[in-house]
């Protein structure tokens, strides 16, 4: 007897959400499998709103979100996090008053594997954090903070990682390093990644599929290799 096919990591149908009655996402439909799924779009397209909605930090106005076959539309953020959804916000991604090590241990409060094992894995992925572990996160540079934020999300042992513009405002050196890490993370740990990015060139180098958001609507959902410059320009309203 053949096994039933595994449901996709994320199934989003007719998703509408926003803030204080203002609709930002106007009915999105897409799925995310075991892949790197890039969400591209200009400022104000709704990328951050989409990721925060998937992380259940913003209420859903209509539509549904299924995580590995389970409806999580009405679940609280800490419940979806417990199911294996990691989230790295664009800004304020660290707890400034806690040290780097404490930030990581806070992320590891859920999950069963021993803390030390998970911390060792984070240090392996981001060796630069090892020397900073006793330092308060509020004193770190932008690139270091992003590493801590990613490391903290990985401490949750996520199946799906939502990364909101992880390279925004970083120096080119950090940008290259981050995209390498994103690919490494997916290939070595099998984590599905939803990557919101403005840097389309870099994102398309690592992504398998891509959604171009334009004013809260999906302008295109295609394989990364099939995305045309014309689609990108029109999606970015250039």
């Amino acid at each position, binding site marked *: 007897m053949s096994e039933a096919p595994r449901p996709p990591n994320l199934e989003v149908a007719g998703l509408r959400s926003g803030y204080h009655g203002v609709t930002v996402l106007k009915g999105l439909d897409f799925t995310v499998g075991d892949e790197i799924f890039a969400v591209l779009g200009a400022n104000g397209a709704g990328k951050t709103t989409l990721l925060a909605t998937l992380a259940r930090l913003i209420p859903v106005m209509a539509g549904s979100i299924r995580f590995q076959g389970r409806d999580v539309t009405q679940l609280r953020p800490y419940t979806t996090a417990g199911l294996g959804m990691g*989230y790295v916000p664009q800004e304020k991604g*660290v707890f400034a008053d806690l040290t780097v090590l*404490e930030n990581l241990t806070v992320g590891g409060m*859920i999950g069963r594997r021993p803390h030390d094992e998970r911390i060792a894995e984070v240090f392996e992925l981001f060796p630069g954090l090892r020397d900073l572990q*006793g330092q308060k996160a509020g004193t770190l540079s932008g690139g270091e903070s992003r590493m801590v934020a990613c490391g903290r999300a990985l401490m949750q042992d996520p199946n799906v990682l939502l990364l909101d513009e992880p390279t925004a405002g970083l120096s080119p050196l950090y940008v290259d390093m981050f995209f390498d890490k994103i690919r490494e993370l997916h290939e070595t740990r099998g984590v599905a990644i939803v990557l919101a990015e403005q840097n389309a060139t870099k994102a398309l180098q690592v992504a398998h599929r891509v959604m171009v958001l334009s004013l809260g609507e999906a302008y295109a959902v295609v394989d990364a290799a099939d995305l045309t410059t014309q689609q990108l320009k029109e999606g970015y309203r250039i």
Partner: protein
Amino acid sequence: MLDWLDAFLITGLFEVVMIAGLGLLLHLQLGLARIANFGVVGFWGVGMYTFGVLYVKVDWPFGDPWQFLACAAAATLVAGLAGALVGWLISDLDIDGVLVVTLGFATAVQIVATTEADWTGGAFGLGGLGFPYDIGTVKENEFVWLMITGLLVAAILFYVWRVHRSPYGRLLIATGGNEPLARSLGKPTFRTKLWLFVVTSAAMGLLGAMEAVMVRYLDVGHIGISITLAAIVGLVLGGTARVWGAVVGTVLTVGLFDIVIRTYLPLPREWYSQALPVMREVLFGLALILVLLFRPLGLLGDMRRDQLMRKLHGR
């Protein structure tokens, strides 16, 4: 016995211990979880009056110390329930909203204590309270009560010290520092904040019951804003984020004023009834302004979490 000990010194020390205890509890709320509770005196007053009313008005089938224990437990419970209600109301509010609600709660407690005269004695006050023991003179009884309350506050200090070193403490700091992020990490922040508020409010209520025994006569003047102000000034002066902040700050403010200045400086007698209480508030306010201007993190400074983590993990 205790001839060497001035009665005013006992009262002054008790005030220092009491405000330090409230400051330590406020440190958990404000310093770690960033809940700006301006209604400290409200929870303290709920405990004080619950204890007083139950102790005086109820015909208990047993005497002290059981009567004291039953009334103190009830005072703690009622203050905790008040904490649950207020904590629920402020759970989604920003700092301005929290200030207004907690301050409003404290005001409401004072109004209820004034108007419900059948129970609380209203403006005339409520007498009939006493120590749950009698070992001799009033001074000796007060001294023992000071020691008992000191032990209770030491236990609170130990609890705060433990919280700083525990995952729960990190969770409180994480929740206070960035609540949405903490939620996205799988932390039930609402429950965390509410439980903290309930426990600390209950402890404030217990301290209120301890105060009721010490003063033995309750009047609404006891539950004015000056108690909250003293706890906040002490905490901010010492350092809101530091374990010892409330203790150091309270010693330097309440201790300096209520013990050194009020008890030992040769001041004109007529000052004691009117001028000194006003002068106290002015000096506390001045100290608060100076600290916020020149040392906003308090005399002890910021949290030393880097050193703490090195000590804990040896890394």
